[in-house]
């Protein structure tokens, strides 16, 4: 415990605490702006961290990322522009809540649920980090492939329009992900010789176009929610009640988030989708999902931040970064002489604990900052719709442009907006498209890699025990869903015939 005491000293000094606070405000700001990502916030911080001591430097990145990801829920809730692929999982519910005059509740559940999930992830990490990292390291392309397919299946099968429409949305997303150069062989696919298309299609302009632009096209002439907006004294009113009512979801979301987050590359984006669909499957009122129901929001929100904490395990314990943010953070750690890897745990455990404590502080900081954000969020509803439309679209343009600093992103956004406008009119969900784009390359590379390893033998996908379990589970889910769809259709037909 000496190390722990040392770690407390490293963190609780003016320099570190002020850094954490400033970085958190910065993260809140960046995350709340549509189109700007946690990765971008982190990359902007790096040059500044060159001039800082090691612990404040890493503290800045951690608190900035944690805050940016949570703040990414704000534009999702208020304007239907999800900030991260994970928040696209539950954006329908939080946006509908806000449209029903409960923006405060939606943000409150997001923030408080995230804090609880994040703190759970912190405690979980504190005790299991090395063990969990060891398990994660045993995952090969076979396990990753099945896990990604499982996540995609969840997204497609729970979507509101039914199996066929969900699967089509998913396949469309997977196809969009294939445009550009094949990640493994650099073969151009579906590019028609266009240089911009060779670079592939980023999910951010698509996400902005599909959610935000199509929403303006559809609802832009409609008056804003006429419902009086939220309780001014306490924007979080009702949050604790909702969290208590759905406490099981809160706990389950945190646990699953912590476990999945530990898998490099998959965790963060996927975990919230899996738990959201789990919440819908086990709910007593699944028909309310996607229409402004807090249940899935509680579970997926908790998962999100638990996974965020856990995604640092492989980075810290083995130096394997799972995403761009942890990759940048690993770079900063190394530069500051805190080599991530097992030596960090044995030689300098105080540094490891210090990082953990920063996590806890960053999570707790979310409460007051999130409260202020929720309180000021009502301004959005006082802006006349006409001006808001213009502001949203300007942000959409700039956000899509900033991905590659080219107008190409804006064209993608526009095209995606039109497609989503048509699809949504026919009850085809947008969320599976986004997840397909995000996870497409992961599914494909792991599929191809596995095929190479197994010499083209499909049975090889069931050759490793964990992979076999995931694989059978995935196939079962599909079989059950297809059976249900077909028998439902037959019953409906019979019923119709009976009435006639």
């Amino acid at each position, binding site marked *: 415990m000496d190390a722990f005491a040392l770690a407390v000293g490293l963190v609780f000094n003016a320099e570190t605490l002020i850094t954490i606070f400033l970085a958190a405000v910065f993260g809140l700001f960046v995350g709340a702006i549509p189109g700007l990502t946690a990765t971008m916030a982190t990359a902007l911080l790096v040059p500044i961290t060159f001039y800082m001591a090691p612990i404040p430097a890493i503290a800045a990145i951690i608190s900035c990322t944690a805050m940016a990801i949570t703040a990414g829920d704000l534009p999702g809730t208020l304007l239907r522009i999800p900030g991260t692929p994970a928040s696209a999982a539950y954006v329908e519910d939080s946006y509908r809540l806000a449209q029903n005059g409960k923006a405060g509740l939606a943000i409150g559940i997001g923030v408080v649920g995230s804090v609880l999930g994040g703190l759970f992830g912190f405690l979980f990490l504190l005790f299991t980090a090395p063990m969990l990292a060891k398990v994660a390291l045993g995952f090969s392309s076979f396990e990753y492939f099945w896990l990604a397919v499982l996540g995609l299946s969840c997204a497609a099968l729970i979507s509101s329009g039914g199996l066929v429409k969900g699967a089509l949305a998913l396949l469309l997303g997977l196809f969009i992900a294939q445009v550009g150069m094949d990640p493994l062989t650099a073969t151009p696919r579906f590019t028609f010789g266009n240089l911009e298309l060779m670079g592939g299609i980023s999910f951010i302009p698509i996400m902005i176009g599909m959610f935000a632009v199509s929403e303006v096209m559809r609802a832009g002439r409609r008056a804003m929610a006429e419902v009086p907006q939220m309780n001014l004294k306490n924007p979080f009113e009702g949050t604790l009640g909702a969290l208590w009512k759905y406490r099981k979801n809160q706990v389950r979301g945190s646990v699953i988030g912590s476990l999945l987050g530990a898998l490099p590359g998959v965790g963060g984006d996927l975990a919230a989708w899996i738990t959201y669909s789990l919440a819908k499957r086990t709910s007593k009122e699944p028909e309310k999902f996607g229409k402004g129901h807090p249940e899935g929001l509680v579970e997926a929100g908790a998962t999100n931040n638990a996974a965020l904490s856990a995604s640092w395990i492989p980075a810290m314990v083995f*130096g*394997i970064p799972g995403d761009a943010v*942890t990759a940048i953070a690993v770079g900063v750690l190394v530069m500051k002489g805190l080599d991530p890897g097992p030596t960090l745990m044995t030689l300098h455990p105080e540094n490891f604990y210090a990082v953990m404590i920063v996590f806890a502080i960053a999570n707790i900081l979310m409460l007051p900052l999130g409260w202020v954000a929720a309180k000021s969020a009502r301004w959005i509803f006082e802006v006349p719709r006409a001006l808001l439309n213009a502001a949203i679209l300007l942000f959409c343009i700039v956000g899509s442009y900033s991905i590659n600093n080219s107008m190409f992103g804006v064209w993608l956004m526009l095209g995606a907006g039109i497609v989503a406008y048509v699809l949504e009119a026919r009850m085809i969900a947008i969320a599976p498209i986004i997840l397909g784009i995000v996870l497409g390359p992961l599914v494909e590379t792991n599929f191809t*890699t596995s095929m190479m*390893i197994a010499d083209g033998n499909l049975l090889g996908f069931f050759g490793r025990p964990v992979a076999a379990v995931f694989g059978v589970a995935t196939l079962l889910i599909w079989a059950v869903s297809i059976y249900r769809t077909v028998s439902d259709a037959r019953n409906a037909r019979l019923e119709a015939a009976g009435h006639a």
Partner: protein
Amino acid sequence: MTHLKTLAGALALSVLAIAPAAAQYPDHAINLIVPWAAGGGTDATGRIIATLLEKELGQPINVINRTGGGGIVGHTEISYSPPDGYTLGVITTELSMYHWTGVSPLNYENYEPIALFNADPEAVFVRTDGPSIEDLLSEIRANPGSVKASGANLGGMAHLGWAGVLVTNEIDPAAAPWVPSEGASASLQLLASGAISVVTTTMPDARPMVDAGEVKPLIVAANERVAAAPDVPTAEEALGNKWAAYAWRGIAAPKGLPEDVKARLAEAMDKVVNSQEFKDFMAQRNFGIDYRDAAGFEAFLKDADESIGKALQAVGLAK
């Protein structure tokens, strides 16, 4: 509306007319294009160079990650940009390969090389409980196809590094097939989980997994031993056949850069690469420094182009 447009057009013309009266270079912000994603080695080194170069030149330098297509998109954008010194780029090993494999006509002649700042040799890794290099090669000879190797994409430097080890020891590269992956960390994960047997990558990329005791280096495909791992033999020491494969990074501008701008940049890069801050950064991250000035970098690129062409032909990937 039409009046506004005419006015706007006139204004645009007048601005264009004044523009060429250039002041001392640089008088505004410079963009540095990095053809790889934020968080990778090229991004990290590019950003430190940008920070230090900013001090030398006195103007902000914006790092722009133009990713995709195995680096082709970013590399192409660098070569297409106006050669005014306000767009620079980090160019990497892959540039020597594109035109050989036929994915893009780009080659070193599309650029004005300014300085090479980094080169790291490929090394061969197995699991900590894995075989020695001799046993590994005899296993491949005895059971072709049983050993699978990985490291990065098909036809990348890691792939060539491995194929070279096989070819110089008179083994058909097809006897130990290459499993393409998204990059070093994905391949190392495959190795650690037991799905494949060999990974080739550079020492800095594999460092954390080596420290974790999960994998160990067998040989390094270099002309001499590397400072980051002094007890790992070179390919020649271990196997008797000379084989070197380096992954490199350098700063370049679009072709046609004015001489005075090029001289100013070369001078600034000379100071940056020789600064203590840069050396410390590279040493901490286990990156090898290989500094060559503009002329030296150009000669290096010409050499690399030829030798990589030969290697790609040997593996059967050149068109």
